[in-house]
């Protein structure tokens, strides 16, 4: 069975609305991306330098990340040479396969969070300004609540105007407690309080919000490290996940964000937000390729249930549905 057939079968087995929603969110991405690949293939008679140059552009337009694109193109060129491919249509299969390979990283990784069967699980959210940390925390709290877990939120953004209130509104919406101190107080102190509160209330999950910070602000990154240390000290093996939130509209800078936040807080996963827009979020490909950080969730809107677990196959399927179907017909 061909690679794509396998992929498709696996997807169709996951019948629920999740797949649909995921696909919906990605249609815009998919249409333009695979549309352009098809277009490219149709226009070229020969696989030559110009062909590759344009392919490069298609990938770059998806914000895949420059170095990843270059590597990919190199590999493709080699493959084309090895298999002695002359016809652009044949390259198509190789292109998709390579991309899937990068997404999957060889192993069958799941996007499951590291949730403790017993005792408190602490999740720490980090990221630059305005990417969707607080909103994602609201959505995730809702998801856990529905699963019957007891959730507590920590209002660790004491800096931005209205940040505490924003989290409180989410707390009310979802029906979970929010631990806070006044605006301007020390975020590490808030975390300390929150951990104690979560413990004494027998919470299953504590989700910690932090202020948005640009990764080149050394002092703010130090502050974040301190926040993490407090959590580490108060709960063994915590935080169980450090989730970096990335905005899908972000370009190459997302790679630097991932690298720097990883160095500072040992990021364990990514949440890719705002995928309901027209941006493609292709930079996650580069991030996985270069830093090995997996995407765990994607944000598909501003509402409580607009959060989906990331499924690499679905994501790729969403991007390449046209290509997949085409291969089947052949």
């Amino acid at each position, binding site marked *: 069975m061909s690679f794509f057939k396998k992929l498709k079968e696996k997807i169709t087995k996951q019948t629920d609305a999740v797949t649909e929603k995921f696909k919906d969110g990605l249609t815009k991405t998919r249409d333009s991306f695979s549309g352009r690949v098809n277009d490219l293939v149709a226009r070229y008679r020969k696989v030559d330098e110009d062909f590759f140059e344009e392919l490069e552009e298609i990938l770059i337009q998806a914000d895949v990340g420059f170095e990843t694109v270059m590597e990919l193109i190199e590999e493709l060129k080699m493959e084309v040479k090895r298999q002695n491919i002359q016809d652009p249509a044949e390259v198509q299969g190789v292109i998709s396969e390579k991309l899937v390979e990068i997404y999957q990283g060889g192993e069958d990784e799941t996007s499951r969070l590291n949730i403790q069967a017993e005792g408190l699980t602490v999740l720490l959210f980090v990221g*630059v300004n305005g990417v969707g940390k607080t909103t994602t925390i609201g959505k995730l709290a809702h998801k856990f609540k529905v699963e019957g877990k007891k959730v507590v939120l920590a209002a660790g953004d004491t800096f931005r*105007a*209205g940040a505490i209130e924003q989290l409180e509104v989410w707390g009310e919406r979802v029906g979970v407690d929010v631990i806070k101190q006044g605006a301007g107080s020390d975020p590490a102190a808030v975390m300390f309080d929150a951990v104690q509160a979560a413990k004494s209330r027998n919470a299953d999950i504590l989700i910690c919000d932090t202020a948005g910070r640009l990764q080149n602000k*050394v002092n703010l990154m130090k502050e974040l490290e301190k926040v993490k240390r407090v959590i580490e000290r108060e709960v063994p093996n915590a935080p169980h996940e450090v989730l970096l939130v990335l905005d899908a509209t*972000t370009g190459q*800078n997302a790679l630097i964000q991932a690298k720097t936040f990883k160095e500072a807080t040992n990021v364990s996963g990514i949440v890719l937000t705002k995928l309901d*827009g027209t941006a493609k979020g292709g*930079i996650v490909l580069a991030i996985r390729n270069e830093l090995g950080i997996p995407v765990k969730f994607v944000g598909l809107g501003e509402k409580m249930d607009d959060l989906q677990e990331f499924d690499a196959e679905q994501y790729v399927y969403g991007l390449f549905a046209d290509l997949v179907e085409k291969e089947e017909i052949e």
Partner: protein
Amino acid sequence: MAFEGLADRLQSTMQKIRGKGKVSEADVKEMMREVRLALLEADVNFKVVKEFVKKVSERAVGQEVLKSLTPGQQVIKVVKEELTNLMGGEESKIAVSNRPPTVIMMVGLQGAGKTTTTGKLANLLRKKYNRTPLLVAADIYRPAAIKQLETLGKQLDMPVFSLGDQVSPVEIAKQAIAKAKEDHHDYVLIDTAGRLHVDEALMGELKEIKELANPNEIFLVVDAMTGQDAVNVAASFNEQLGLTGVVLTKLDGDTRGGAALSIRSVTNTPIKFIGLGEKLDALESFHPERMASRILGMGDVLTLIEKAQENVDEEKAREMEKKMRTASFTLDDFLEQLGQVRNMGPLDELLKMMPGANKIKGLNNMQIDEKQITHVEAIIQSMTKEEKIHPEIITAGRRKRIAKGSGTSVPEVNRLLKQFEDMKKMMKQMTGMQQKGKKKGKKKGGFNLPFNPFQ
């Protein structure tokens, strides 16, 4: 991962040409490929890049570069000129209505920085133009959006108009303008909710507000880190609303900010302001030339110097500028400036603006602490006059002596010397691309600064 600036990219081509002593059209083509890559890496939209490169190629092949003895510099010059032109002039003027109040609408994607920028603009209008703006909370969707603007209003001690989140934004805008007239506010700044350009319902709402409020300015607020999608967003907002200006936020980060070029070229609307921080005074005029340098990875020398001037006395700043430019910078100068630099504010921010600084490994982890500064000071103070001017004479024996004299260790002395050399090399880069022997390629890390021994 290290993003190279254009100057670095052109190095290897230059080397080849130097060997041949003549520039061919093929060489120009190769250089253009590097230009293209540099721009793509900076997030300039690929279509915009294509057009741009075509234009520059024409100029280049049109003999300007072919004839030049310094083709690399010539290419950079042409590229920078074209880039600067494309980004338009400096237009940080804000409209004034002859029938007050002047109405300004802030629009954009979610999280771009509209609310913050609304506060910053109000601050600017008061400080620079002596105006009395009314802030309007017309985001009824995002949790605590109203509270956010009210908090900013409080920080600024300025009134914020709100009707809660149960009244339509159109109605809020209407009543706010009436209220502004009544209270004699000369400006009305409407903060709207973030929305996707493809969200028809919400874009319709903005059109309605526009009809009713008849704004003098509609500012699109865009995150400077935006990638290829910037063209779609900007074009779409412009088509649907007719923008009058753009504000580029979060430029205090380390993004190249190629979105600026993309946006400018698809909307043909001036970028008026840039956001340089979260605080309410972190709004500045847009300078096309500086932006061009930044996109090309040539550092923002002007802003660096300006910052220095703000905090250091002017004469010394000029001196520093000159020394940096000519790279005639001794350890003594370094020592003297150490104190000055300490007063200039966050050192990491300053360093980021220096050419090549984006490649400095470890800059992200850099931390300036008093004790470590003292170490560096002690090391330099333990050197002889001669050693400070010609550090290359410092032999192993001398190093031992210096370490002993300063109460530090030989490795610490070595590190300082090594990094001082590297820094001088980097400073040379600022003057152009004269420096030789640097190989192109994925050289991770690159330079280190003498500031690094603080680590």
